């Protein structure tokens, strides 16, 4: 899923400073699962903002909504009839959702209420870790199902570097060495042959480096 973290309330209040009636829009997609942008978070954030603004003597009206997904046009359309009744939308969806809404509602300012994180997994309640950078050219079949681009701090294709100590990356005590994980898995799978091969330079053109990406599925268009 796409993960995220709430923006500090001070930053949100500063963004909202010019406005006195807004929509606060959540999303039932990834951000609900990682508990940063679902309907519960909409309610909590709306209350927090109202209280803060009341205390500051500058009341604010907030319409609370939560869309099925902010990254699909059909779920954005129902907002169209009333969106311009408000001065701005504070969205706590991911960066994709926020931008898509901005594109659809050209005359309404969009404000981000969260910092979008990464494509990751839930380790346990309250902890998420990154797994994928969406580089567009998956090599997991060669690396024991563990991504060198994402899990190695240097995205090495022939790791581990000299900074790997007892399975931990030199970058942080909380970061496992991706290449130690790869080697452990290759050994368990009896696939260490894969380690001894020199891999071609990665084509980053399929990644963000090639410019904003687009997928066209001819079978679906």
């Amino acid at each position, binding site marked *: 899923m796409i993960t995220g973290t709430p923006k500090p309330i001070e930053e949100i209040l500063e963004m909202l400073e010019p406005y006195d009636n807004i929509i606060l829009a959540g999303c039932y997609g990834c951000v609900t699962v990682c508990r940063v942008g679902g309907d519960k978070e909409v309610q909590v954030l709306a209350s927090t903002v109202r209280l803060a603004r009341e205390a500051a003597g500058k009341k604010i009206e907030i319409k609370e909504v939560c869309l099925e997904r902010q990254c699909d046009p059909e779920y954005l359309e129902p907002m169209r009839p009333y969106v311009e009744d408000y001065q701005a939308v504070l969205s706590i969806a991911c960066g994709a959702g926020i931008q898509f809404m901005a594109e659809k509602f050209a005359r309404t300012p969009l404000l981000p209420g969260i910092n979008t994180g990464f494509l990751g997994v839930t380790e346990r309640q309250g902890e998420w870790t990154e797994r994928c950078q969406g580089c567009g050219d998956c090599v997991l079949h060669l690396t024991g199902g563990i991504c060198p681009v994402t899990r190695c701090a*240097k995205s090495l294709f*022939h790791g581990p570097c*000299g*900074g790997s100590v007892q*399975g931990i990356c*030199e970058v942080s005590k909380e970061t496992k060495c991706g290449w130690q994980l790869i080697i452990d898995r290759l050994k368990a799978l009896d696939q260490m042959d894969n*380690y001894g091969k*020199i891999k071609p330079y990665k084509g980053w053109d399929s990644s963000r480096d090639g410019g904003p990406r687009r997928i066209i599925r001819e079978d679906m268009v």
Partner: protein
Amino acid sequence: MKSGSNLERVLEAGHFAVTAECGPPRGADPEVVLKKAELVKGNVDACNVTDNQTSVVRMSSVAGCMLVKQSGTEPLLQMVVRDRNRIALQSDLLGASALGIRNLLCLSGDHQKFGDDPQAKNVFDIDSIQLIHLVKTMRDEGLFPSGEKLEGAPKFYIGCAVNPFADPFEIRVPRLKLKVDAGADFVQTQCIYNMEKFKRYMEDACRQGLPERVKILAGVTPLKSAGMAKFMNRMVAGIEIPEEIIKRIADEPKDKQAAKGIEICIEQIQEVREMEGIAGVHVMAIEWEEKLNEIIGGAGLLPRPILAL
């Protein structure tokens, strides 16, 4: 000869090679490099110039190499893939070769987290093993990796670094083999203190026949004090200084610890010299270049051979 560098000639002639390193300054003052180079001169076959080591911004390695060269020592250019994509790497390689730099060390580079600019974007477009392959392609085939023909191939004696003490230990020799397969001509190791572990590493490397394919220079670093030893043990990934070495230095009074450190360093050089498959030594006297002559001379490695071109 692949590059015609002095280091290559010394190693190919079967001499036990000696290299050292100069860290460029954190500023634009050439005198700092020239002063260090003066201390290195005559003691080594080539002198590494580091490339923004520990991700701390310093004078560029190419510039440092030219200053070392100007003062009469053959430079060895360290190049990391942390800060340059393949376009910049190729361009800098062509420039360095055009300026007469003939030795190259291909490195991944310390993560930028450790330097003054932890918020910098890292590059790592290709890794250090792919950099070896890239340089070899340019040198031996006269081609850019894209397949386009070069107007003049760069000439480098291609080196790499290995840390025999990082984890997992069992992957360390296979990883060296990858670097040799990619085209490394020589390798400089991380500083060695744990001789027993390094012996096991070298036995494994010999079993794989690696010393016949690559010249292995063992890395040593003299310890200035017991405090420095403890600090390195704690803070530097992949450095293992055995307790007995720390004790030997700690047992000396403070003003004699540096001399003991040098004595131990000389012993270490003599010890690696006896090991099968070791072709030379890389003396990293960090900010202690004035002791190079004493260490290298003490190990019986002076004068350095002078070979005709």
